[in-house]
Structure formats: C-alpha cells, structure tokens
C-alpha cells in the first residue's frame, strides 16, 4: 500500500536524502521518496508489515533529524 507522511520542520536537505536512503532499506519497503521542499514522504510498503514499518520509520527520522516530527497524512 501507499502511505503519505509529513516530516514537519525538516530543515536540512541532506538529511532528507539520508532519511530516504535509510527508509528504503527497511524490510518490506518497496519504494520511498522524500521531498525536501514539500516535507513529504511517500512510501510503498507491504500491507502486513505496516505497523512495524511505521515504528522503524519513526526511529530513523528521530535518529537522523531529532527536531523533525513524523505525521501521518
């Protein structure tokens, strides 16, 4: 399924790239794209792993950009 997230207060373009790369490597994530300008993350994930993946994405965002909050759209 496709999921949209907002990365509120995403301040650094390089971090957007790092977040994108890290999320792509989560198991069950087929596609991930982070747009720095619109602060949007679009991910394609396996349906059954939704909760687990969401947790991991949250962790990655906290790790790379502690000031950014992840919100589901």
């Amino acid at each position, binding site marked *: 399924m496709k999921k949209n997230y907002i990365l509120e207060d995403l*301040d650094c373009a*390089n971090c957007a790239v790092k977040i994108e790369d890290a999320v792509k490597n989560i198991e069950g994530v087929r596609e991930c*794209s982070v747009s720095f*300008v*619109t602060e949007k993350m679009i991910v394609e994930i396996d349906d059954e792993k939704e909760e687990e993946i969401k947790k991991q994405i949250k962790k990655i965002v906290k790790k790379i950009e502690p000031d950014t909050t992840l919100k589901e759209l």
Partner: protein
Amino acid sequence: MKKRLRKIIISAIIFLIAVLIEKFNFINLNENILLITQVILYVISYLIVGFEVLKKAVINIVHGEFFDENFLMGIATIGAFAIKEFPEAVAVMLFYQVGEYFQSYAVKKSRKSIASLMDIRPDYANLKVNGNIEKKSPEEVRIGDTIVVKPGEKVPLDGIVTEGNSMLDTSALTGESVPREVNINDNILSGCINLNGVLEIKVEKEFGESTVSKILDLVENATNKKAKTENFITKFSKYYTPIVVFLALIIAFIPPIITKTEMLDWVYRALTFLVVSCPCALVISVPLSFFSGIGSASKKGILVKGSNYLEILSKTEIAVFDKTGTLTKGVFDVQKIANEKDVDKNELLELATYCESYSNHPISLSIQKAYGKEIDKKRIIESKEVAGKGIISKIDNKEVACGNIKLMEILGIKNIKETDEIGTIVYVAIDKKYAGYILISDEIKEDSKKAIQDLKKAGVKKTVMLTGDNKEVAEKVNKELNLDVVYSELLPVDKVNKVEELLKNKKEESKLAFVGDGINDAPVLARADIGIAMGGLGSDAAIEAADIVIMTDEPSKIATAMKISRKTLKIVYQNISFALIVKIGVLILSAFGLASMWLAVFADVGVTVLAVLNSFRVEC
C-alpha cells in the same frame, strides 16, 4: 526560530566583548588574566551557539554517522580551539549558525511563496440543510448534498449548478484571466472563485475526488518524482564529503612529515577543508529550483506531475501532435452552405436539419447546431437511414435526401455540383432534384499556428502531426500550420507505431513529446518520452494518462511550459556550477594556505543562501 536568533545574538555580543577587551584593555588587566578571561568568554560564546551542533554530532557518532555536517563543524571548530585559534573557532561556529538561520528562513519563505501559488484549497463549504446554511469542512460534504457558494468564495466541490447564475474566476486552475459564465445545469469545478451571483450546487464528487484535491495532490507530490540531475547531485554529495575529509587528513599529516614544517599550520588548512566539506548548497538548491518551476507552471494552468518531467521537457526536440482536438477544435461546424440558385439558403439548411433530426451522428448534430431553432417533429412524416450513405425523409410534403455522393447516385439525381473542398460534404436533394451541399469541417484552434512557431523558437527541431483523417484534410490543415512532417490515415494503433519509429530514429539525448487530448490516445501518451494532454480541466482521463497536463485548450501553452522548463534547468545548472566552483576554489586556496577559515565558512553558507535565493527566480 526566535530562540535560535536570540542565541546567535547573545553569542555574537559575548564574542565581540572578548575581541574588544584585548584591543582596548580598559581595566589594565595583566596579560595572563586577560588571556584567561578572553578564553572563558570565547568558550561561553561558542557553547551558546554551538552546543546544539556538538550534541547532534555526538548523537550521530553514536549512530555511526561520521560525515554529518554537525560532526564536521564540531571537529573543525574544536580543532581550531586546540591549535589556539580561539576567535576563529567561535566565528566559524557563529557564521555557520547565522548561515543555517538564513537558509532555513529562505527555505520557509520559498515553501510559503510556492504554496501560495497553489492556494486553491477551499477552507469550508456552506451546506444547505433544511433551508438553513451550515458551515462544514469540505471533507464532510457528501454526494447529492446541496451547497451554497456566495460571491467571493471558492467553489469547494465539483457539482452541477441548480440555482442562480454567475461569473467564475478560473485563473487558479487555468491561468486564464477572462471570467467564465455559469448557469443552471452547468457543471462547476472546485477551485474556481465565484465572482458575483449566489450559486446553489448539487455536489457530484466527494472532496477527495474533486478537481481541486486532484490538482493539489499532483503538484504537491511532483517533487517526490525526482529529476536525474537531482539524483546525480545526491549521489555526488555522498562521495564529495568523504573525499574532502580524506584530503583534509592527508593535508594535516603528510606534508608536515615530508617538509618537516610546523604541523599547526597544516592542521589549520585541514580544518578549513572540513568547513567546506558540507554539500548543503548543492543538495538544497536543486529540489527548490524544480519546485519553483512546477509552481510557476501550475500558476499558468500547466500541471507538471514530476520534477523528472520538467527536466525531460527541457530536452525535447521532437514534438508530435495529434490533430483532432489538439491542433483543431475537434468540434465539427458547418462551414459553408452552397445552395442552388432556385433554392433558398435557409430553406436548404432547415430541410437538411429536419431530414437528419433523428440521427445523432456528429455530422447531423453539427447541422442541427447550425440551424439552431426548435425542431417541430410533427413535420417529419417519415425518415429512413441508408447505411453508410445518408438519410431520406419526408418533410411536410417534400421528399428530402441528405447524404454523400453515393446516395445521390443511387437516387439518380442529376446535375450534382461535386466539390473537392476539404471536410465532410452533405449533398441535399429535394423531390429528386439537386438542391446544394453543406460543408462541415473541423476548425483549427486560434493559437495553433503560434504554438508551432513558438515551439520552434523554444528549441524544438522537428514538429510532427498524426491524424486518422485522410491526406487532403491533413495537408490542408498543415498548409496553415506548417509542421515539418504529416502522417495521415492512421488507425490508433498506427499512431503508437509511428511514435515508436520516431523514438527509434532519434538521438538518445533528444527527447520526444506527444501532445494529445488524453481521451483515446493513452497508449501513445504513455509511449512517448513525455506525454502532454490538452484540456485537462474536468477530464480525469487526461489528467490520469499524461505526464504534463495543459488545463486549457491552448496548444501555445506547451511552448510556455517549455520555456519554464528551460529556465528551471538553467537555474539548476547555475546553482550547481556556482557552488562547485566556489567550493573547489576555496579548497585549492586553503591547500596552499591562502584561505582562512573565515573565508571558508562564508563560502559555505554564502553559496547556500545565494543558491536558494537564485532558485526563486524561476517564477517568471
């Protein structure tokens, strides 16, 4: 933001005091105490502005992230402290933070200004419930509900006007400044602004499916589809930082060993390298420029579904057009009524209309449209269709035959004035006597000619027209429009094949765009390097199938889109080359000991801020 600014100011004041007490030494402190006071002030000033950076750096190291900008800045400044360059250390951190502040201010500003370009999201809907009006969020309104839109308000959902008439400002959707009139039973699209009358609308689509949501969704998600240039820069930056850091290590340790010179000087040069090693300016300016480009296109009624498409459009050298509905209006109109001397022109049209009135063939409809009056069906005594040839009807007491030349021949009509004019010709005979013919043809759009000329000016090398019509019609249209190549009498599948052929014969780096109306050419739109659909407003099929959607029916907008794409790419390249030249320049200077850390930090944040500002310029 405010907290950050306050920290910067306090830190700057303490820094200034520290610098000044040495210069003026008003209180006549002895040298040692002076130095200690200074160092304490520098450290305080440094920590106020740099503590966050150090904290992040430590966290990142714990996570195994070494080439993070916080870490690099931390190392560079702590290194400067270590070699006793105190003012340098504080200044670098201070300017770095000032730069970051400016940068995030500029990014916020540009996010806002671009968002305001697309400020078409309605905030509320006036729902009519039992004669009362309730303000609701557009998401809560359901299909079949009635909503009221007052003058000055945005139309929140798609629907049909059931009450009232008004003028609509559609500029937010189409870029068109001329208002459009709506009356009862007209379709109305969300995102338009109601100008004068009060309208009641029966809702036909939920908010998520309404035009305004679809458009916003497309434009907001467009930057998630990244351009090649952007991907290249992100990849480049992944190598750039480690390489520069590696070079810094070499400079710090190798030359002092070889030349047996003072190591401190080389360490200073190495630290300068670290300051320049952040790829921010590069990484930030590329997506911003693309976003500006996409925003300014959408302001002109051109929807670009991804940064990648804007990039491909800028490299387009072959433009392939579908004829009907793209270069021509796709509506068939009566162009000429050629009556015989003894027949009245109006009577000819009237009888032809009555004759064809039971048919809903496009040709019949266009004759009925030209007649424009109510049809009294009682006058039609009898009507029968001769398949593939025409219609014979009895109107009042006259026998009227309308059809092609074959029908006339079957009926044995004599003295037919055959014509070779381009279009569909309906011959009319009254009581077995030839009465004249009606010429029906498609019309070329007003701006088609300009569109082709503008495209040539914008750098398109080859223009091609594809059509299912016969050769004569195609040639006649092209006499006016002057495309380079015309292929006629094509079936839908032939159109795909022609595009495939053109794709095969072109150079790899030049791109091919196909322009159609998006209704029955989805396979061709998909096959081309870039598919452009016209008249997207209100047509879900067109929006779905294409990469770029022109909201209005004007082909000249394609040249506009191309100009925007070229300008965007120009700015992207400007930013990239500017950032690279400055960074490499500073690296070379500092390798030879000619650049201070001050210069390096200016180069780093200055370039970023300039690149961000430059990306605004796309909005033309």
